[in-house]
């Protein structure tokens, strides 16, 4: 059965969840003017690597990347799957920790952090146990519930936009590429698409249809940065940790019964992030399951969740989260570069062998 819709939806949801929190402030911090340059660079890199990855995967119909790497021998498994696994674990840890901190900063000021983190891990854990099909079906449900609202919020967020803030447009200074904040912005760019290689054969999809998802994700990259930028101007927006959230706070709609639409926006994004976490947990668990087939997947997910929860509890403050972002960027770039390319070349290699 073709489940392209589910895959496209999942792709959109996880990316939206990743984009709207830390990405805007990372980009705004990275350069003084012409923010569209770093954004487009990121988008181009994203699209190229996704396309290469998809092309590579299309050489191996109905196989996931674990099967692909293991068919080429143990070396590949260690060279590629081990970093992927480590990346997943660290990504989940960072995501859970960072988003729980975001939740406490933005609206749960009185709730203890451990409770927020427990919630953020428990639901993904539950989903991950149910398996990949459950995760994707939930994705469809969640998108029905929250996407219309999200679109509405995005439209009304133009309320306080002042187009003059778009200038100056051009920037000759390309030093943003080496700035840590720009490197951190790749958390949103490279974080979400690896699942495309994991879900086969359980969920089959047409590779071409993923292109549709770009149409939703690319505007999200741009709007998440430009709405706060045009509402506040660069000099003000750079003082915020979550510029997009603040930009939403400025929306005044007297005919809406809720005073703060922000909370609804945030909660829908948090559900997207929960999906993302459950997906990553599930991916990490099947990697382990492949190397240790004797252990039941349920126990793997339980122990992974437990380890991640403990790791989250050990991170005391926002400074440390930033630090982890920095350390994680090595793994992030390794995974971003090597996985799509290696799959692509292995695909070519196997094609030659066949003929």
């Amino acid at each position, binding site marked *: 059965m073709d489940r392209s819709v589910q895959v496209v939806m999942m792709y959109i949801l996880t990316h939206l969840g990743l984009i709207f929190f830390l990405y805007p402030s990372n980009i705004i911090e990275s350069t*003084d*003017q012409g923010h569209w340059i770093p954004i487009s660079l990121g988008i181009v890199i994203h699209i190229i690597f996704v396309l290469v990855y998809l092309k590579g995967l299309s050489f191996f119909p109905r196989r996931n990347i674990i099967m692909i790497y293991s068919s080429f021998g143990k070396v590949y498994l260690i060279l590629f799957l081990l970093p992927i696994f480590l990346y997943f674990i660290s990504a989940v840890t960072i995501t859970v920790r960072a988003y729980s901190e975001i939740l406490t*900063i*933005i*609206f*749960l*000021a*009185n*709730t203890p952090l451990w*409770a927020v983190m427990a*919630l953020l891990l428990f639901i993904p854990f539950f989903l991950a146990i149910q398996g990949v099909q459950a995760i994707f079906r939930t994705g469809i449900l969640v998108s029905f519930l929250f996407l219309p609202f999200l679109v509405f919020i995005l439209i009304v967020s133009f309320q306080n936009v*002042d187009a*003059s*803030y778009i*200038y*100056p*447009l051009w920037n000759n200074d390309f030093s943003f590429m080496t700035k840590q904040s720009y490197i951190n912005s790749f958390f949103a760019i490279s974080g979400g698409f690896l699942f495309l290689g994991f879900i086969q054969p359980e969920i089959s999809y047409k590779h071409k249809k993923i292109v549709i998802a770009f149409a939703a994700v690319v505007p999200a990259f741009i709007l998440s940065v430009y709405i706060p930028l045009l509402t*506040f*101007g660069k*000099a*003000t927006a750079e*003082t*915020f940790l979550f510029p997009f959230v*603040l930009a939403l*706070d*400025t*929306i*005044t709609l*007297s005919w809406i019964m809720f*005073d*703060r639409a922000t909370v609804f926006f945030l909660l829908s994004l948090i559900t997207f992030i929960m999906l993302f976490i459950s997906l990553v947990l599930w991916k990490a668990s099947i990697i382990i399951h492949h190397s240790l087939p004797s252990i039941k997947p349920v126990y793997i997910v339980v122990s992974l969740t437990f380890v991640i929860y403990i790791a989250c509890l050990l991170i005391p403050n926002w400074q440390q989260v930033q630090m982890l972002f920095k350390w994680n960027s090595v793994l992030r770039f390794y995974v971003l570069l090597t996985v799509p390319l290696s799959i692509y070349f292995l695909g070519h290699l196997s094609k030659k062998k066949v003929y």
Partner: protein
Amino acid sequence: MLKKMLIFSLLPFLLFPLSGCWDNRDINHRVMPISIGVAKMDEGYKVFLQIPEPSSESLGTRIVTGEGETINQIIDNISVNMESAVDLLHVKVIVVDKRLAEEGLNDLISGFIRSRDVSAKAVIAICDDNIDQFFESMENAEGGEGTILLDYFEKYSGWDPHVALSRVWEVYRSSHSYTRDVAIPMIKRGQTTFLEIVGSAVIKNGRLVEVISSDETLLYNAFNNKSTRGKIEILDDASVMILSNDTDYKAEFTDQTPHLQTTFNFSVMILETNGNPSAQDIKMNLEELLLDRYKALIVKLKTSEADILGIGQHFRKEIPRKDLKNWRSDYYPNLAFNPIIQVDIQNYGNLKHTTN
């Protein structure tokens, strides 16, 4: 089977965590001030909370005050002393006293933005009066349903185009932005009405630098393309009501000097006439009146170097960002401003207009 039974019997217990009721305070155990007043003391601040109190007959108002070093400390103290917890979530109006505004609002405003306790959408106003008495009179105000200040600034109730309406986030933006300042309304106790508008305070980088009249505030609103509908202008020979307005800008930047030509189109309706002036006369007089006011306003603003009209916004294209930082001091005083007022008499009311 046994396993399923076990799982199902455990499911109801999920109700407790899933309800999300964590150290949650019920709404009847919170007090939600609608407006707060902040005054600068010799050391620290004094805070006034205006809390609507529902009673059996009508909605009353209660004023609670506290003094301390920081706003949060005061709110905390008040919270401790009150029977319920203070929740600033629904604060709609923030009134600061003039002294605090003159010394600078930056710390106060960035505190609000940082903690997100107070909504970034709250309207901010300056009290040009004794703030103690101002809030005291609110408690005694007859028929004031606890929302008197809020109603005054609400667009769908008491707001008028000669009142500047500025929100916390706009004031915050003005203290950081290179090219944008903000005007906030100045109010005092009125003789027969509860409030009286003094004019608007021009806030530059979070500090009060100048006061403009409410007539000038109308021009400020018109410049920013806010509707000035309903405002009545009195001329020597007639009075007219503004029905609609729109503004076009043409910015030029030559020889390091900004030139701005602004065309204001006002559509008006004639309400009353003295004698029988021709439509042309009324038009000319009104254009002249508004033009003079604009010129005076610009002179006033240029001397205070506060760009409440956001004129610098139109030159972001031309001035490089590193120079834009000094827009207020280097370029703005040299601004060549050329306002063009175009008045169109949309209708003459119920009477036919005949000129002799």
